[in-house]
């Protein structure tokens, strides 16, 4: 493989389950050492895409080359060159940390003389020193995920597919997991990682946003953040978010309104007057703070991109 060729290359990749199209003509290129964030709402087709790239699902159409091998024609060669972490934790809960590592070391035929060192590396990386003999079922979520990553990299695969590796993991452990991902990438490992935590997109070199099985946008976080939302973004506080949202969505000049944590984000058309919003809410008896102009976050961009993608005629 020449240096310039993408490590993961997909063209027109599609997967249909009966009448349902989970992934629809997806194009994807990932260069060596890149960390690509795969972002999209639940059911967007992230897992299906990753499974096709791992050779676990057969594409209905299109092609994908991973580490130089065709996923449909050479799935075994693909499997030997990848590490995969499935969305659901899938190590053996009734085996200990060391037993899981040794098992995958055997399965991947890690040279015997190197196995001890690599297991030690994985244990250190996962922060599981002193817990080698603990049954995996007794570990907390963050530790389990790091151990799963440790098992997936024992054979030093050039490509890693991580399907929502941080879901259900507490924020501090998530942060630590991303440090691991970035250090692996620094060693030249190519990584595609899906997540539904928008804030994690910041850790990626590049982001691929998909919805309904189709590519919505792709680019670096900086590029995406520059995306023109088509208006000005304001943040509002309210004790009754739901009621406020309903009113705001119907209000003149509002392009889009959404709940972000305990606040509301309101996208106003360039000509609209933000000062008109508060009286409108007050007229309905809804208490709300004044709209404050804010810089759009990546998440704002994603929400906008997805809604524009879903209803292109309205945007």
């Amino acid at each position, binding site marked *: 493989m020449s240096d310039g060729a993408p490590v993961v290359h997909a063209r027109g990749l599609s997967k249909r389950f009966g009448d349902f199209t989970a992934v629809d003509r997806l194009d994807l290129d990932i260069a060596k050492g890149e960390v690509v964030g795969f972002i999209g709402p639940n059911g967007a087709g992230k897992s299906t895409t990753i*499974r096709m790239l*791992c*050779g*676990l*699902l*057969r594409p209905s159409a299109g092609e994908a080359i991973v580490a130089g091998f065709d996923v449909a024609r050479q*799935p*075994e060669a693909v*499997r*030997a060159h*990848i590490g*995969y972490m*499935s969305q*659901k*934790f*899938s*190590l*053996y*809960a*009734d*085996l200990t940390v060391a*037993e899981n590592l*040794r*098992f*995958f*070391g*055997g*399965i*991947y*035929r890690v040279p015997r003389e190197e196995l001890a060192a690599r297991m030690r590396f994985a244990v250190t990386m996962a922060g599981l020193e002193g817990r080698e003999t603990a049954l995996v079922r007794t570990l907390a979520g963050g530790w389990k995920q790091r151990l*799963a990553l440790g*098992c997936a990299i024992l054979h030093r695969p050039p490509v890693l597919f991580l399907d929502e590796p941080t879901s259900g993991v507490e924020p501090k452990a998530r942060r630590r997991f991303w440090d691991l991902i970035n250090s692996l990438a620094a060693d030249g490992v190519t990584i595609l990682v899906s997540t539904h935590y928008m804030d994690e997109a910041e850790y990626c070199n590049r982001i691929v946003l998909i919805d309904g099985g189709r590519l919505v946008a792709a680019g670096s976080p900086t590029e995406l953040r520059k995306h023109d939302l088509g208006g000005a973004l304001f943040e509002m506080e309210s004790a009754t978010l739901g009621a406020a949202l309903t009113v705001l969505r119907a209000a003149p000049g509002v392009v889009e309104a959404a709940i972000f944590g305990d606040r509301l984000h309101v996208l106003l058309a360039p000509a609209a007057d933000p000062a008109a919003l508060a009286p409108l809410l007050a007229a309905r008896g809804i208490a709300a703070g004044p709209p404050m102009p804010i810089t759009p976050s990546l998440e704002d961009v994603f929400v906008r991109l997805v809604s524009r993608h879903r209803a292109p005629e309205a945007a």
Partner: protein
Amino acid sequence: MNLRRLVAIAYKETLQIWRDPRSLAIALLMPVMQMGLLGYGVSLDIKHVPLCVYDQEQSSLSRQIVDSFTAAQWFRTVAVLGTDRELRAAMDHGSCTAALVIPVGFTRTLFTTGRAELQTVFDATDTNTANVATGYAQGIVAQLDATLNARWQAAHAVSASAAGTVNLSPRVWFNEGLDSRNFIVPGVVAIILALVGSQLTSLTVSREWERGTMEQLISTPVTALELMFGKMTPYFAIGLLDAAFCLAVAAFWFEVPFRGSLFALIVTTALFALVVMGLGYLLSVRIHSQLGASQIALMLTMLPTTMLSGYTFPLDQMPRAVQAVSLIVPARYYVAILRAVFLKGSSLWEMAVPIAALVIYAGLIIRAAARAFRKSLD
């Protein structure tokens, strides 16, 4: 197929069996329980048949006859009767299954004519018990016959060579040594091995699908054959251990005579274990749920092996169609092999036909199991 991966899988599976109480229980307790249940419970031997005695003669010989009926455990005197009407009533009420009638003048007739008749009456509503009890009675009479014959010779100073001409009653062949247990217990071993073997492996792949660990496993370069042989190895060892236990119980506890070679026993047992475990594995691969796979494994082994293996119900007495169906029941061949090894001491060569059947079976099932495994989530 790579040995390193196979060993990794076998080792992992062994650890999991060791830590899974359900698998361990099936592996270790089921054979013990079933050996006891089937070895003792399903015996065709009938003991302590309720007997009514109607001794019309009341002589020393007649009392001796009554004693000889109850001396063994076959019969147990429940009533002593005085009239024909009482006999009739006792049989009608079912208070006795068998009745022994010694007519008046039995002793005199016997010693003057050399021939006399004892009457035994059996309640044949339970034909099996009646049949077996008839056999016992005939045996007892035959023994009595021999004793009296000797006494007759002594009394009449007839030489031993002439003794054969003085018979009291027709001789009945009764092989007291033929315990039906000898016939059944080897079959019990086959049933246990079929049940336990298929149950154990029916859980192994379905468990990985159910727990989600299969998704990780099929993302690795592991092959279907490595997975199958790796997973089967520890179960195969357990199956052989169970078989050894059951066979030892058969030989030493139930004292079924063992006349064959240990080598032939081990070879054929391993072959049968491969067949039933391959079947369980095949189901486990096809059915992604532990419950479903183990239920179907139970269905496919329990009924056919108990009904159609010839273990208690002789196949040659079944309708032709049923006999034909029994040809596809692998336990049938193993039961035949076990009986031949235990009771006849047959060599491998003499059992070539059932062995060939098992070899073909093992080949087909292993092939099907290996092909059924798909490294795909589709």
